């Protein structure tokens, strides 16, 4: 899976939040409690929107601060989340200052984008795109 969700152009975003609802539906949920995307205005809709999604960092700060090893760096950037190992300490949320780690109040654990791209298929204006990512040399086995 060498795919990564990318924000192509936030200026095209109309703020409909269809992506946020799609993200929740992907895990069979309706509503917004389980969404891993955040779309909000840049302090007033007239100035456009901020689209917060996981950037799939190659050296993710969230994984670096996880004390239990619940977040494992993926070969292609971003993290795999192991719920069983997670104690819900929330360090990952503080470390990701772009705000891409969302919180599940029900399980008291983080929710993190898996870069499946389901949301991008519900973006009416091409703001989100699932793109192929080159495998960095050091990550190749």
């Amino acid at each position, binding site marked *: 899976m060498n795919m990564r969700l990318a924000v192509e152009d936030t200026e095209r975003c*109309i*703020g*409909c*939040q*269809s992506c946020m*609802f799609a993200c*929740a*539906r992907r895990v*069979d*949920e*309706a*509503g*917004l*409690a*389980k*969404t891993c995307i*955040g*779309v*909000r*205005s840049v*302090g*007033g*809709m*007239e*100035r*456009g929107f901020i689209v917060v999604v996981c950037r799939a960092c190659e050296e993710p700060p969230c994984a670096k601060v996880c004390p239990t090893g619940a977040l494992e760096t993926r070969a292609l950037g971003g993290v795999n989340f192991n719920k069983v190992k997670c104690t819900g300490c929330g360090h990952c949320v503080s470390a990701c200052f772009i705000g891409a780690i969302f919180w599940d109040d029900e399980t008291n654990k983080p929710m993190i984008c898996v870069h499946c791209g389901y949301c991008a298929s*519900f973006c*009416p*204006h091409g703001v989100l795109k699932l793109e192929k990512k080159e495998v960095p040399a050091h990550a190749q086995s």
Partner: protein
Amino acid sequence: MLRADPLSNVLYIDLSKKHYRTEKREDIFEKYIGGTGAAIQILHEECPQGCDALSQENPIILAVGPLTALFPLASKTVAMFKSPLTGNLGESHCGGRSAVAIRLAGYGAIVIKGASYLPVYLAVHSGRVYFRDASSLWGMRSNFTVGRIIRENEPGAGLRTIMRIGRAGERLVSYACVTTETYRHFGRLGLGAVFGSKKLKAVMVSGKSSLPVRDKSQYREVYDEIYRAAVKSEVMKKYHDLGTAENILPLNELGALPTKNLRTAKFDGVSGISGEKFAEQYLGRRLACSHCPVGCIHIAALREPYEDEVYFYKTSMISYDYEPIYALGPMLGNSDTEGMLRLMDMVEAYGLDAMSTGVALAWATEAMEKGIISEKEAIIRLNWGDYRAYKEGVRMIVEQPNEFYRALAHGVEYASSVYGGEDYALAFGKNEMPGYHTGAGAHIGILIGARHSHLDNAGYSIDQKALARNKNPLPEELVEALLAEERWRQILSSLAVCFFARGIYLPETVLKALRQAGFDLSIEDLPRIGEEIHREKYRFKIREGFSLESLRIPGRILETLSPAGRLDERYIREAIGHFRRLMTEPES
């Protein structure tokens, strides 16, 4: 309804006692779906007969429906209250983030009663209501600033609505609006004044809960079907391309665009204010309501120099739509694009209903021309097309420096009852007219419509279809078409979906979507429930003194040629008579 669905939770807030409670009202939502259907029941319960619309007894009801936050285009909140403009049923719909936020905060409806002794705004977060002292926001000149401050003061960015009033609401202008998310409105019938009378500056609600559905895989199937239709269908295209402003040129071409207080229905200066003109030269951004991929909201970017300093500019972002363009453009003879945008911006900053404001100023202009009011009353000279004077007029409607502006702030029906000029006071059931002189259907539709809105039954659309067929319907046929449409719209606004999505939410789709929300209705149930909700609204209207016999028909609509020719008062009265007979028949 699904047992785990929070839809039936009604949040009751008492501003006098600073107290709140939540009550389960399955009885209402099971029977009447939600939105309009639920709101009118709650209004019957909460609004004492004959109460003053600006007294603390008048409740504010905000209701959403089962499809809200479950399916695309279910983006509307329905507000119900007694209208200070008409003294009767007030119903207004608004999008923005309001509906999704209320639903995902865990409520089907919010009821606000009483009045605060000091200015407050309400913040609803995680099942709690906070009464915040809004004294520092009261009297603020611009509604934009109010939104900005509350935005910074409250959590929940992206997942919240901030419904607020401007100066017009504080000053109890009978057609003050409530604004959400800067550019959407509970526009008509004066909800802003009801807020103001309660010293309620704003209501902010945040929410991000999950909702139950009946069958997860079927839910996704139905969702995809509706979503694809919304983004691909031709019926939605016009809304995202030019937006509703697309209608300016065709309606003018037809001779149906009310101009200069409807002395004519064709505007010479139309090219300055067309949807095409705005899109090509000023469109700065398009926006959407929550959970609507269409994005019909069009924002013009107006760059203006400051006159006192070189190379010093400001850029204002101004929302435009067909209705405010009609009312502040042709209706006032304004063809100056930028001048009209400035006027719109001011109306937005004060929190006024653009339609009522434009019609009120149009009447005042004609009344000045005819000499029934002078500069003694109006203070300034109002002339067609003079947007600077109209800006001053708008300011005075809000500030009400004298008796004349106090009267004008009560609407054109009231002002003309004091000063004369009723024949050209363009109000229907005391509500100022929308921008359609398409034929008898538009006007009759508003006269008999349950909330006196052009969106009740879309008479303008029936007129245009009749024109295309080149055959005027009999009054009976017209009324039956209006009534059928209005009853169906009760279902749409109970779901509560945007009326722009009516081409997508056809009965079969409605049933499929409702099934996922746990409503097992049949195709026969929908018209029955629609009729029942409509009758419940009429029951409220009659209770509050509405009478079809005493409806005033402004003489002007009979004088000015429409695309269907000259309108005939007898035809209109016959239609109203037929409507009365239909409404007194037992339920079908």
